């Protein structure tokens, strides 16, 4: 069902007003508040290198940060799990159906 893009103007669009409303509220809040002067990153240190150090909990960066080694590991595992899940979901199920014919213990599925 590939069709060329066209402007969708059904009744469905009306609900989008909610998103616009949310934007209005957020903007109103943000623009009426003040945060003071930004601290920025003074000095000539390398921000990228500092990020690299922070990720492995090394205390060598030019700018302050927290250690992220544990988060790094957790995210690594999460990505791995997501990959497995994606593969599992993507598998076609009829392979099992073929296998089920010959096995008694799977007959009750």
């Amino acid at each position, binding site marked *: 069902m590939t069709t060329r893009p066209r402007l969708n103007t059904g009744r*469905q669009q009306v*609900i989008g007003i*909610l*998103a616009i*409303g*949310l934007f209005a*509220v*957020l903007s*109103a*809040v943000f623009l*009426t*508040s003040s945060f003071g002067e930004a601290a920025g990153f003074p000095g000539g240190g390398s921000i990228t290198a500092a990020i690299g150090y922070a990720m492995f909990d090394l205390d060598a960066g030019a700018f302050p940060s927290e250690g992220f080694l544990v988060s790094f590991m957790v995210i690594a595992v999460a990505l791995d799990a997501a990959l497995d899940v994606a593969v599992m979901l993507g598998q076609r199920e009829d392979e099992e159906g073929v296998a089920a014919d010959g096995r008694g213990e799977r007959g009750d599925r």
Partner: protein
Amino acid sequence: MAAEGGIFTFAPAIAVLPFVSFLIALSAGRYMPKKGAFAGIAATGGSLLLSLLMVAQVASGHAHHMELYTWVGGEGVPFELTFGILLDQLSTLMLVIVSTIAFLVHVFSLGYMNDEGEPGLPRYYAELGLFTASMLAFVFSDNILMAFMFFELVGLCSYLLIGFWFRRSGPPSAAKKAFLVTRFGDYFFLIGVVGIFATFGTGMFGGPGVEESFPVLAEEAMSAMAAGEAMPEAVTTFFGLSPGAWFGVLGLLVLGGVMGKSAQFPFHTWLPDAMEGPTPVSALIHAATMVAAGVYLVARMYGFYALLPTLLAIIAFVGGFTALFAATMGVVKDEIKQVLAYSTISQYGYIMLGLGGGGYVAGVFHLTTHAFFKALLFLGAGSVIIAMHHNEDMWEMGGLKDRMPVTYYAFLSGSLALAGIVPFSGFWSKDEVLYETLVHGLGGSPILLGAYLMGIVAVFFTGFYTFRMVLLTFHGDPRSDLAEDPEPVRWNVKIPLAILGTLAAVVGVINLVPVHAVVGAVPEFLHDWLFHGPETLNGAHYEELTEQFAGYSAGAIPGLGGLGTLFASAGVSLAVALAGSALALGLYRGPDPAEHTEKLGALKTVLYNNYYQDEYQVWLAQDLTEGTVAGTAKRFDDGVVDGLVNRVSDVSLVSGYFLRRVQTGIVSNYAALITLGLVVLLVAFGIMGGWFGGVFA
């Protein structure tokens, strides 16, 4: 305690021994010779020995009280619930009676149950053991709550034993009837127990070393009221009633349990049906345990009842009426055990009459003698029933006199005692009951004379049905093949009969009041025994109480004096008993007696149907309670209670039906709702927190 208690430290064993036999018979009975009978015989024999030791100890020293276990109590609790043992003159006497009868019944059961090859014997002996244990524990209870517990256990065991032959149709329903009728009375008893605890803060009967007991507190409250002083602090009355009225209510509630257990009118209907149980059980129930429990309770807390003249009058009247009422029904019965059943009801009526009429000693005396002669009669009937191969119809018997002489003479001894013929035991005790009621009636409480009159008329019927039973069973010619050639009975039947036969004849010796009045050297053992009980628990104290609070005083027939009244009373009751017996002799003598019940006409039907007592109670239970009251309650329940619940659930059901349409299953809708909620929340918080730069603030 142990050093001071001496032999008393073994007192708990009196009840524990039969309980152990219950456990043994239940767990190992089927592997034992005689299926556990010997365990029961040994246990009850041990109880009997210990009870006799206790009597000796109480006689030589003084009464004893010990506390075994406190199961509710402490700082924050206003009262203590305990198990304890009270061994005074009354309870030790009763212990001896109960353990004697239980022992003999166990021996007799060897002949009645084992020799007949009944199945289920371990169960039988287990239940018998538990029954005996409960009754013994009930007797030595030191407080009314403990008494109530064992009172209930006694009821449970009698239910089990009456329904022993549960495969037949009759016994289970008889067992249920006994259980339900007595339970009906016990509801009142339970409320009464709670009331006594709420009122006095203690349920103790009293005794040595007991600081507070409810009869004494009640007495103090009554005296304080009489003197116009403030009530003792420990006593609280309810519903704004005066102590007298409130104590009366409590007494009546407890009396409900007594009347249920002791089969007093109108709760007597269970007892004749209870004959469905094995005959030794009937003997145990009617002579010493179940039925005796009720009147024993009255005697136990007599210090409380003695304060309340109204209750004494009620007890006397219920007793007198029951004595007469049951005696008339016994006149027409055909089964030997039925006659005995009605005589039991009647005799317990006498005991109640004695207690209510101010004759504490007389009531206990009759309880004692009745226990022996009624156990004897039931065991004798059991012997006859063995001989007749479990045919109980007296019209099928006859002529058994020559074929089973031991049974005959023992039975005759019991019958003479029951009829109240001098010098058998029943004469002395029944006479004293009637005498006490008469003199108190003459001495200022004329209402008792009505109860006395019923009692004296009942004596006539007692004599009549007793000798009708004896003549039909043992005299004349055999009226069936079974009676022609009865099965012989063995030593284990004859020995208990012989022992009880002797006892029934001579046990009256313990209180020969008329003889004592003439020859002072002949002592009144029981009278002295009960009058030397512990403080506030002895007969002398009770006499003072009845005199002070109930206004009982001994009067005399005008012109005869005290001694003359005594002999006049004895003479009248003896003459009436002889007249009744003579009428029976006249009607049923000879080789082939005829049935005379036809002459009663319409009365016969009424008597055969026991005055339609069962019918009206069934009507009360079924038509009135189940039909009208329960029907109304059901309509209320269906309409209002259920209706309310149903309407509430209907509302949530309908609202849920509409509300669930929100759940469309379309992701976009959920997202939209979440967004809407977020916007609303943000706006709300923003306005409240002033996020909009003071625009709305």
